[in-house]
């Protein structure tokens, strides 16, 4: 009797709602899709409108998915040049991730979310940032430290970012094994599942731009810069080489690796790289002369694409109708367009070169997650078909109404999990040049019909000047900092 009641049409939606709330309703994306929540703030950043970070996604940041909303808030703060606020938000995210990582293997809170996910949809699971998001979290936190004039703190963060890459690699290998074992167990690979997998095949082109979702040459490059600035060229060399393994054609990376190989006396490496890179003509390996400093341009372009939902009804095995809703990227991948950096009056013009395809990393991360998504879907279909069958068996007069209600519920409650860090850049590019000490006027122009900007950079002898350029929509945010000087930050000169 009681069992019948629980599964009967009148109480089921309420019960499920209760479950959903127990697993943390505040800021929930159970019924409102995630991109819709964050979208307005991204539009504001794209038009150069300043946001009050404290008030941005305020209740969401305190909810069960706080870790993700704080990532968005931190990045939005950073985009508008508020590095201290960015640092605060990221520190919160790092703390939340750490707590989740330290949690017991079988945790009551986690289990609550998972049970709700079986009955409702994947949005009920607590958000755990993907490997590439964790890497970027520490990467951008390092940038916040650099803009606070704290090289040592930045050193800690780049080491953490590199450790995350290593952890993600190992986790990925472990998950591949687990997924194939689970697939064997659940006989995933049967006709229905293959049909589902086909629906993801549209993402293959974008995903193939990167070898996996978590290896990040941009992070290794920033790490190399930090090591060079702290006077550890050996560590810097190792990270430039790692970045080169991922982006072998980036000319700036090649020159950095060559320059350090020569100054560290790694002659075998030097010869091997020289023949491999096939530098056109006689490209000189840059020399750091006294009285000159290094300009490093970090260019982050656009926003990573959001996940979209694919939803279609399917008949449930026990009768009734359910739905399948999956996240997908409908995203034709195109190579990034460079930022041109000219020095008016000198006739020099250079362009940034790509060092991370964040869009492809995001697509790849979703692809790597597909086996898990499919398995959770199969479990959910089981649970929902039990509810549907129970409704059909219930009170004869009401059977049709009840059945219909459960079917509607099954379709409505099935929503794809579209959560991902959306304010990440679409791609990242770098440029590096040795310049004489003093002030230099640079003219920046984003690719295509993008915005343009003029900026005066300060170069100090033997030091690095970082020029952080973020382009979102029609806004170009430009800020600079001289590394390793106690006074640290040079005035931001960007205009929107």
């Amino acid at each position, binding site marked *: *009797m*009681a069992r019948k*009641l629980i599964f009967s049409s009148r*109480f089921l939606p309420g019960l499920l709602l*209760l479950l959903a709330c127990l697993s943390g309703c505040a800021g929930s994306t159970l019924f409102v899709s995630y991109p819709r929540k964050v979208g307005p703030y991204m539009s504001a950043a794209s038009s150069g409108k300043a946001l009050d970070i404290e008030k941005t996604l305020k209740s969401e940041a305190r909810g069960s998915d706080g870790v993700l909303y704080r990532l968005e808030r931190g990045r939005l703060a950073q985009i508008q040049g508020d590095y201290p606020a960015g640092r605060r938000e990221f520190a919160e995210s790092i703390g939340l991730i750490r707590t989740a990582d*330290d*949690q*017991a*293997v*079988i*945790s*009551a*809170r986690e289990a609550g979310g998972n049970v709700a996910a079986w009955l409702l949809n994947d949005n009920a699971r607590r958000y755990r940032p993907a490997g590439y998001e964790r890497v970027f979290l520490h990467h951008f936190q390092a940038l916040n430290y650099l803009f606070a004039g704290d090289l*040592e*703190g930045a*050193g*800690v963060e780049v*080491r*953490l970012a590199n*450790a995350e890459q290593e*952890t993600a690699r190992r986790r990925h290998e472990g998950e591949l094994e687990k997924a194939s074992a689970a697939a064997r167990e659940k006989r995933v690979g049967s006709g229905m599942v293959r049909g589902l997998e086909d629906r993801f095949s549209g993402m293959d082109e974008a995903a193939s731009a990167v070898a996996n979702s978590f290896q990040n040459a941009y992070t290794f490059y920033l790490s190399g810069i930090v090591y060079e600035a702290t006077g550890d060229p050996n560590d810097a060399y190792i990270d430039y080489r790692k970045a080169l393994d991922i982006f072998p054609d980036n000319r700036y990376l090649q020159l950095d690796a060559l320059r350090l190989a020569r100054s560290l006396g790694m002659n075998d490496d030097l010869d091997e790289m020289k023949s491999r890179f096939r530098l056109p003509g006689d490209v000189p390996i840059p020399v750091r002369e006294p009285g000159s400093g290094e300009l490093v341009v970090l260019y982050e372009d656009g926003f990573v694409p959001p996940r979209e939902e694919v939803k279609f009804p399917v008949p449930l095995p026990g009768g009734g109708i359910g739905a399948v809703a999956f996240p997908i990227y409908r995203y034709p991948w195109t190579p990034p367009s460079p930022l041109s950096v000219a020095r008016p009056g000198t006739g020099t013009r250079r362009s940034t070169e790509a060092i991370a395809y964040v869009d492809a990393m995001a697509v790849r991360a979703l692809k790597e997650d597909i086996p898990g998504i499919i398995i959770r879907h199969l479990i959910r279909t089981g649970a929902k078909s039990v509810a549907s069958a129970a409704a059909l068996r219930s009170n004869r007069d009401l059977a049709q109404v009840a059945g219909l209600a459960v079917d509607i519920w099954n379709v409505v409650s099935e929503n794809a999990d579209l959560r991902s860090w959306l304010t990440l850049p679409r791609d990242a590019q770098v440029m590096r040049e040795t310049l004489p000490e003093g002030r230099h006027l640079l003219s920046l122009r984003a690719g295509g019909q993008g915005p343009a900007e003029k900026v005066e950079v300060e170069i100090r002898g033997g030091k690095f000047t970082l020029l952080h350029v973020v382009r979102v929509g029609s806004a170009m945010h430009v800020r600079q900092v001289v590394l390793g000087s106690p006074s640290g930050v040079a005035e931001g000169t960007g205009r929107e």
Partner: protein
Amino acid sequence: MTNPIRTIILGATALVAALLLGGCSAAPDVRYGDTNAHQNLSTDFGSSDLQQVAEGMVDSLLTFPPVIEVTKVRRPILSVTRVKNKTLQHIDTESITDSIRAKLIKSGKFQFIDRTTDQEANEEFAAQQESGLVDPRKAVPGGMQAGAEYLLTSNLSEIRQQGGRVTDVYYKFTMNLKNLKSGILEWSDEKEIRKIKTRGLIGG
């Protein structure tokens, strides 16, 4: 028909009430702790590690025979640089440096140069020499400070390994004493700390 519903509602109410009451029952427990006691709460570099490292290093330096020899007749002048943080944590290395220096000062074997307050000292000099407020006969003359004979430098590095539920963290603290005149490394020592943490199997 209504009985099971009532049971569910009653049960849920009781559960919520229990949760609410459980959260606000007792006042927080605050007490004094032994600063030397071992507090192993996490694999992070904590206060007891700091104490261990500072004490171990200072003991090692003060009991090194050539150092005993030099400090027997006079108190050499030492400059202590800030500990270089090469770990995966934001550690207040200034505090480790302070602890080591304080312990060395208390030993009475060395004299110290403090470069961290040079900026304030310069401002004070400027006030004495240029403001016209200070009696020139009583103003401290510039350019008379002593130079350090020895430089004490240190590094803290970390190796972290993770497998399954176990995290193994290894810290190495290295310290060097360099004679600035001769360039000779007079003393060097390292201290290692290893911490292993296992994640719980079942919890909240």
